[in-house]
């Protein structure tokens, strides 16, 4: 099916099912229960983040996973894509299609230039160069090109680029006539529209923006599978494995790595454009180096160089970020109320630093544990589990549907 082999088809079907059914899968607890408040993730904003960051990391994995070039500046392309999309909403139309196309083109051009220069070096020097470019972009966006009083205010600095009632919006200018800001849409479908389904105590939300982003993620994922299985993908893995042999086999490594860089930059641009499509506000903080670091963390968390890893990593990171930051002392007391008072206070006092505003600490510890015990990321954990079960059931030799090898 779809020109994929059996295993990849299975993987793709599973991911498709999970994306389409996410509103059910992510809301396992009835609406209003305390568990739902904490662990349900099936609301539009978070689900959109799952798939958008999925796209971002899928693209990053094409560069980092296949060629081994660790870019530390991919957030720049995410930010550039966001700005490009908002400009499209301001100038042309609230339809997201031209916005997404422009985000990919602009991010592609930036990644072509940045990649061309950065790829002159490899290893840590490459990472430093991309980091430097990303920080330059961040500072340009934050101050130089964002001065509201100057005539070339491209990014609106600290406040962030946002829609205004007097924007030209050539194609659908009249839409704002009722005095409210127009909303982003795909032809007739507004991104923020949702359909709510009440079943028993459960509430499931089907959000237009989520499904648009989700389908784009599936397309991105499909393209990434095709790239992994193509001669081009093999060449990229060869770059990671032995550049010397490549050069002496008559292959020019530079255009291969540059192509991978631009493709992953365009993925990041698409993700940025989608972020703006869901909420038409683009800020410079999206380009900050910590954002670039988060992309690297998501990729490693999931499993570098695997097909499904980026999606798992992005989902894991966003999910835990979300629930950990929601837990506060009150919740902890409630959970631990079965303990004697003194002990309860003591434990809550310790856990206090790991939840709420301290969520970084927990996520950092989880990241360390994954690195130490599962160097291949969460996907490796899954593979180990699958192997354990397989050994018990049959002695079918084939293992894991996630390895890039054929």
């Amino acid at each position, binding site marked *: 099916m779809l020109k994929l082999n059996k295993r990849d088809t299975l993987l793709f079907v599973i991911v498709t099912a999970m994306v389409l059914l996410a509103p059910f899968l992510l809301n396992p607890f009835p609406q209003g229960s305390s568990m739902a408040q904490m662990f349900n993730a099936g609301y539009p904003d978070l689900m959109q983040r799952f798939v958008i960051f999925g796209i971002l990391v899928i693209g990053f994995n094409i560069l980092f996973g296949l060629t081994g070039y660790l870019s530390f500046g991919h957030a720049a392309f995410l930010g550039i894509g966001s700005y490009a999309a908002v400009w499209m909403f301001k100038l042309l139309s609230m339809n997201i299609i031209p916005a997404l196309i422009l985000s990919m083109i602009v991010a592609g051009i930036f990644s072509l230039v940045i990649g061309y220069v950065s790829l002159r070096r490899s290893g840590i020097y490459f990472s430093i160069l991309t980091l430097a470019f990303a920080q330059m972009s961040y500072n340009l966006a934050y101050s130089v090109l964002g001065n509201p009083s100057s005539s070339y205010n491209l990014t609106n600095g600290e406040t962030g680029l946002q829609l205004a009632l007097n924007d030209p919006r050539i194609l659908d200018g009249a839409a704002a006539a009722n005095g409210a800001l127009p909303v982003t849409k795909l032809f007739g479908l507004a991104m923020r529209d949702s359909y709510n389904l009440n079943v028993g105590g459960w509430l499931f939300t089907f959000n237009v923006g989520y499904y648009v982003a989700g389908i784009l993620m599936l397309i991105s994922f499909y393209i990434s599978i095709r790239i992994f299985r193509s001669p081009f993908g*093999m060449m990229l893995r060869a770059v990671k494995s032995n550049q010397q042999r490549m050069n*002496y086999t008559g*292959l020019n490594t530079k255009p291969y790595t540059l192509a991978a860089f631009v493709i992953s930059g365009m993925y990041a641009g698409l993700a940025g454009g989608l972020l703006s499509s869901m909420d038409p506000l683009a800020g410079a903080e999206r380009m900050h180096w910590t954002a670039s670091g988060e992309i690297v963390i998501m990729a490693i968390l999931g499993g570098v160089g695997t097909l499904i890893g980026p999606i798992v990593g992005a989902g894991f990171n966003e999910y835990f970020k979300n629930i950990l930051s929601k837990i506060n002392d009150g919740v902890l007391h409630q959970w631990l109320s079965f303990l004697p008072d003194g002990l309860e206070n003591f434990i809550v006092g310790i856990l206090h630093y790991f939840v709420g505003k301290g969520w970084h600490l927990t996520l950092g510890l989880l990241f360390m544990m994954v690195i130490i015990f599962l160097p291949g990321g969460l996907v490796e954990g899954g593979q180990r589990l699958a192997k354990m079960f397989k050994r018990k059931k049959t002695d079918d030799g084939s293992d894991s549907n996630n390895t890039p090898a054929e």
Partner: protein
Amino acid sequence: MGILEVKNVGKRFGGLQALGDVNLSVAENSVHAIIGPNGAGKSTLLNCLVGKLIPDTGSVMFDGQSVLGRKPFEINQMGISRVFQTPEIFGELSVLENMLIPCFAKRDGAFHLSAFKNMLDDKEIIDRAQHMLEEMKMADKHSMNAASLSRGDKRRLEIGMCLSQEPRLLLLDEPTAGMARADTNNTIDLLKQISDERDITIAIIEHDMHVVFSLAERITVLAQGTPLVEDTPDNIKGHPKVREAYLGETQDAA
């Protein structure tokens, strides 16, 4: 006129004159060995041939075209393949994939963006790679990780990868260095077979006299960056200058 013509090549590293004034002519379809004691400039010379180093003086012509100033991948596309001292293969890739890469490089050139083709649908390339693996007697190992091959198999794979490109000149840099005797003999047989069966020129740099005298038709002796003599193996064996400069210093002479 040989397929490879090296004229007045000199290379200096700071104060060290690595190559003085090297003239060398490798005849087409011959096996030509370059020997010499440590530091004689053998590897420097080889690196000048494949584009890794650019000589300070002189010219290197391959089949009537200068190779100087060209990048390694361009020189390879001209028809020169190189086998390294320690096998350079794609360790993380499967043996079959290792063989596919040079086949793609031969057919599609230095860069080809085919991101949406399925590699395994390319029958022409797959057949070619599998054929080559059979020739190298490695067909049964096609799905193994190349890094997990034995040293001798890695060497065979590397030679096979070079041959799959149908090069006109095969450069070997001490192909049996660090090998057990049995593996060395296998490699000698393989190289003999290659040179007998194919229209290919082989230039080999080697320390092991056993290898050199079993393979080479011509031998150039390099000492301190300049060629001492160039002759047939029989004449080299008895040559007084060679004994003095090279063979006399090692146990291999006996």
